[in-house]
């Protein structure tokens, strides 16, 4: 298990946040995803095989950009 901490730019409403969550959860291997509109940050808990790129793509799919990413 690992955890990606992401900072997302471009979110401005709560459906944005829930869309990103949904999109992240669809990535195979992602166990849990949380996005906070207030902090413009999110976390994705996932299997070790999930790559940074997949997370980035999942966010991009909904129309937002990751401005910072950390792995834990």
């Amino acid at each position, binding site marked *: 298990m690992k955890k990606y901490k992401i900072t997302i730019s471009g979110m401005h409403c709560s459906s944005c946040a829930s869309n990103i969550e949904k999109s992240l959860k669809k990535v195979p291997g992602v166990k849990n995803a949380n996005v*906070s*509109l207030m902090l413009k940050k999110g976390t994705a808990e996932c299997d070790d095989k999930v790559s940074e790129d997949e997370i980035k793509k999942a966010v991009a799919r909904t129309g937002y950009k990751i401005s910072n990413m950390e792995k834990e």
Partner: protein
Amino acid sequence: MNHEHKNHEMKNMKTINSHHHDEPVEDEEIKSWKKKLIFSWLFTIPIAIFMFSGRLFGIEILPESWMVPILLVLGFPVLFIFGWSTIKGGMRGLFTFYFNMDSLIALGTIVAYLTGFLSFIGIVDDYSGVAAMIMAFFTTGKYVEAVARGRASQEIKKLLELGAKKARILKNNQEIEIDISEVKVNDILIIKPGEKIPTDGIIVKGESSVDESMVTGESIPRDKIKGDNVIGATINQDGILYIKATKIGKDTFLAHIIKLVEETQSEKIPIQKLADKITSIFVPIILVVALLTFFAWLIFSNDLSRSISIGIAVLVIACPCALGLATPTALMVGSGMGAKRGILIKKGEAIQTMKEIKIIVLDKTGTITKGKPEVAEVYPKEKEKNLFEIAASLEKNSEHPIAKAIVSYAESIGLKKYKEVKNFKILRGRGIEGKIRGKSIVIGNRTLMNERKISLKKFEETIKNFENFGYTTMVISENKIILGAIAVADALKEDSVEAIKKLKEAGLRPIMITGDNEATAKAIGEKVGIYEILANVLPEEKANKVKELQEQEKKMVAFVGDGINDAPALKQSNVGIALGTGTDIAIESGDIVLAKGSLIGAVQAINLSKATFKKIKQNLFWAFAYNTIAIPLAIAGVLHPVVAEIAMALSSITVVTNANLLRRKKID
């Protein structure tokens, strides 16, 4: 300090603190909405004048045939330049099936705008002016909302930006300023008066008082001397301090606090789950509803223009945002208010559970009392010194606060040499034993003496007296013969009495839990005003006692402890409140963590949780009520699309503003 010197100092302070103004993300957002807002209205105001001058005052500024083309020209930049991010995001949502709020606005405004072109062929009325007005109001709403959201997170933002950016390090006897990221553990840092302490450390030289309010919520500066710990991001008041960095980067106290706050914020609390579910399916449902409304009106009224207008009103009035913002904004304000007072809500759920709490179990040592016991009275059979020679020799091997009290007392009466102890054993919650020169020594409480069948006979009265004073009494025995008794007292924290009074006023039933025996515990309970006492409880039994209470009373139970040996009890309770002391914060074990060690913090935490949860409920109520009233009204065709848009914007703003009102609540 002379004046010049002070000036110099001030300058230094400036250089160290001047790197603090990184543009926060939120401000960027506000700025961008503001720009869009101004330009949108620049074009929308003329549109409004053209549209309403004829209708309201009968003055035709423009010839009839110019009207629509001019509205289309003026409306274009409002939608497709200043509103482009919304249109783009919304359209993208429509095509990728990740519908969002923008999808509704984009669809509504584009349809309205297109009626302008359709009006040329005479099949519908022109609504292109309405499109611009909707977008302008939407932008305005977003701007106000962004400002309010920024306000909601101001305390947290302050916390995030609290860390020092620079440090002054001592290298080869020279002071050099370096970036905080370059500081390593064991580096010696110099902090002048008025400066921020760069990172967690221990004072190696100098003394000063340190303002820790920004981190612990403790308002009175603390005096610090060599050997004391200091917390990064706190402010050195009056002396020059030399500290050795002990923790850096992610390991610092501040970093832990920030992590905690961020986790709370991105965590979902149960009451929000329904709202989230609705938010996530809200937009597609509204799209369908709008479409159905449009066709229903078209069939029954046979008026295409009116049907379009009503369809647009349905699109733009629906507001998933208010629902989505209800909890996070209130939680943000609440946790910000907490952070300012050193109250860290680690588990958002605790806020919801708190209002159900009826019983509050308080650990005695370290929670109600200072946790730093001192020897209060000694009753030796022979000489005091002889008694302590034996007692301290054994206790020296234990880390228990009582052991420390006995050892430090022994030192204070001039004892320097200890005897060799063999077979040393700690008997948890009861005492210790070991052998000195072959003689079996047992030191401990009444329970232990009974267990070992050591008769208390001659000491019975003394021990009882000690207990009635609230002293913890340690009996020292050698080969089953009692050598004496030592009474240890743990002073109450200054505000314990007040805090317990307030807990009772809040309708909670306080219960004290302790390893002390009945008599001692009762005496202390009496002093602080707690009359329900669980005495003789071994540390590992505390969790069980909490469980028993939960089952027997069928009530929610909160536990307040220092998290050192009561972590299981904190976990077992419905809401665990962990009291921290300085840097040794028991972050892992509590649902709510208090950075300062006072029991008043627990009272504040309870009040804050209740107030925050009430706000959340209010917000959710308004958001639900708004949508359940506004959407049917729009479907019924009684709302003009622009009015619908204004109502929508106001609903989001109301929720965020209401969350900000939480600050007015008195929680102290």
